């Protein structure tokens, strides 16, 4: 049962190694309830589809893995789709060529494949940091995409189905189900995997390993000089993050029963995964997961509304970078834009007028500055 712990005048509850304030614990509980309630909610509403939310959770889960690298070792990987895609394609290949039918075995295969892939790509990339690292991960991701696209054994641009066995459906606990039921059951499987995965990630972020990763991310040289074999740790983190991607990809294949290169390996997908982490808030644990659901949902809505949904995504990204750099979850935490503003409002309701005035002034100033820069560049006049 949860035990109470008092630290610095704040009451926290500790359960299975997870420590949270009352507020956080309530939010957590609500979140878990919401996750389990999704199939019922989507049945009632037309605009919310189980498939869309499910997909969002899967990509968000991959983003949670990516976040280990991003938040702690401060490495931006632009090739995470490589692991998602490896997991997805491994599942397809095992279903088609190895005749594996059980969901459990297929997922294990996905994990194994993603681990190997992450170990390989990691080994080649981890001597580098920053932009070079991002560049390399993007390049390797595209290489995998090109391979999947080009190999007829992998289905080429048409992709591959996952329809093993006489029932054309992977076996859950040894049985097949009606498609609608299958979707719901695989959803609950995903929820279970996500909860376990989040718990594991949480424990990792409370562990000494995380201290080492933070050290490497904040001051790499110093990390070496306190005795950390930096590359080995980065490699380990890379592999762990890849496993999350692979699991997500494997589940994706099992759920959708079809994989294509575009949706799983293309670098725009890698960008999406990174984007999810930032949209949700990369300084938080669950942020990337929420970012995943929100992004996939927005893209789904966007695609219905206009054919220019990439443009919309781009604009959202701009708003994010300039207005809400801490992402959805991050902005509500202390120090984030939303929580700061709310705090201000509570203290001084009239602050709204001040904000409006300063916003107008800043926009004016920026416009003038930019125009003069443009003028100088184009005409050389000072």
């Amino acid at each position, binding site marked *: 049962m949860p035990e109470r712990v008092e630290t610095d005048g704040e009451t926290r509850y500790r359960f299975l190694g997870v420590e949270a304030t009352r507020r956080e614990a309530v939010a957590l509980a609500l979140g878990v309830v919401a996750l389990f309630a999704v199939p019922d909610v989507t049945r009632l509403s037309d605009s919310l589809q189980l498939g869309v939310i499910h997909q969002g959770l899967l990509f968000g889960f991959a983003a949670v893995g990516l976040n280990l690298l991003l938040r702690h070792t401060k490495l931006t990987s632009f090739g995470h789709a490589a692991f998602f895609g490896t997991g997805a394609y491994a599942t397809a290949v095992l279903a088609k060529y190895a005749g594996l039918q059980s969901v459990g075995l297929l997922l294990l295969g996905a994990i194994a494949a993603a681990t190997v892939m992450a170990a390989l790509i990691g080994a080649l990339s981890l001597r580098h940091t920053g932009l070079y690292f991002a560049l390399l991960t993007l390049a390797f991701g595209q*290489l995998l995409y090109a391979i999947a696209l080009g190999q007829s054994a992998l289905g080429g641009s048409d992709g591959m189905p996952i329809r093993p066995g006489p029932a054309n459906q992977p076996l859950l606990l040894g049985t097949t189900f009606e498609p609608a039921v299958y979707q719901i059951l695989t959803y609950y499987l995903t929820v279970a995997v996500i909860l376990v995965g989040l718990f594991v990630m949480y424990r990792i972020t409370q562990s000494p390993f995380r201290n080492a990763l933070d050290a490497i991310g904040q001051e790499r040289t110093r990390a070496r000089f306190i005795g950390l074999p930096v590359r080995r740790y980065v490699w380990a983190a890379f592999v762990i993050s890849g496993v999350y991607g692979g699991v997500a990809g494997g589940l994706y294949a099992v759920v959708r029963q079809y994989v294509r290169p575009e949706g799983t390996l293309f670098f725009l997908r890698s960008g999406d995964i990174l984007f999810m982490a*930032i949209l949700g808030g990369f300084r938080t644990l669950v942020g990337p997961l929420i970012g995943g659901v929100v992004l996939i949902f927005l893209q789904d809505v966007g695609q219905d509304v206009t054919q*220019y949904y990439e443009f919309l995504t*781009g604009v959202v990204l701009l708003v994010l970078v300039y207005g809400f750099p801490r992402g959805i979850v991050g902005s509500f935490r202390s120090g984030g834009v939303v929580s700061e503003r709310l705090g201000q409002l509570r203290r001084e309701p009239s602050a709204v007028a001040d904000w409006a005035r300063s916003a107008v002034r800043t926009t004016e100033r920026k416009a003038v500055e930019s125009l003069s820069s*443009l003028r100088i*560049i184009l005409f050389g006049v000072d």
Partner: protein
Amino acid sequence: MAGTLETALVQTLNGVQFGFILFMIASGLTVILGILDVLNLAHGELFSIGAYAGIGVFGFVIGVVGPPSGVLGGVVFVLAVLVSVLLTAALLLPVGTAFEALFLRAIYDRDQVYQLVLTFALLLILLDVKKFVWGNTSLRTDAVYSAINSIPTSELVGLNYPTYNVFVILVGVAVVAGLFWFFDRTKTGRIVRATAIDREMATAIGVSTDRVFTLVFALGAFLAGFAGAMAVPPTAATLGMGTNPLVLSFVVIVIGGLGSLRGAFVGALLVGVIRSWMITLYPPGEIAAPFAIMALILLVKPEGLFGTWGETA
């Protein structure tokens, strides 16, 4: 015997031509990376906008000049094409300038991840801008390709090689020479290099790093647009044409070395030629070969063939 020799020569020339185009794209990317510390993910889109816009400009200029006839007509036509390409590239100047001055500059001192997100956002926006302006189907401009090919060049030495490709190679050589001259001999070029090597020092001697950055980014955009206009006549402009050159440019930069112009040149030609040979000898190798070389360099000489001008991290 002569047949295979001729094929080998043609393939190599094709590779060289592709290499020059690739150099134009990669050089902008590597210079922006070396000096601004920015990985411009939208660079491939700038290239493809050059291609799309180039078609329009070509159409207009060809309409004015008319097809080449005789020696003088031929010279005039070639000049007209060159002018079109330059005009197209110039169109990309305000795009690059605006993006750097209005968007990038604000986030230089922030976490590096935001810069990647920003150029990625530009990529997405440009994708749909292209869709909006030019639509979903691919565009062609056969007129330029066939017109230039009608001018005899390689035929004069008994080789049946498209004159347009010769044209690209010659222009490519001029661009390479021009870039090296700019960075080695001109004052502005040397100031730019100095800023790459030591930003603080450069500021101390009175250089406006702001202006240098904007200039470099605009130059990169110019080169990308130039490459797009040069590359489009033999093929077509498609919405997705920017991705492959972007990724290949990455490979070139890794092979040649971050920020190194010389490296980009060697890397681009290497990738271009090897890719070309693969297409004839072993088609699946076309994609894999550049990456294989990249992986080899990463293992054996991680800083690239030529390292960097400035300091390595």
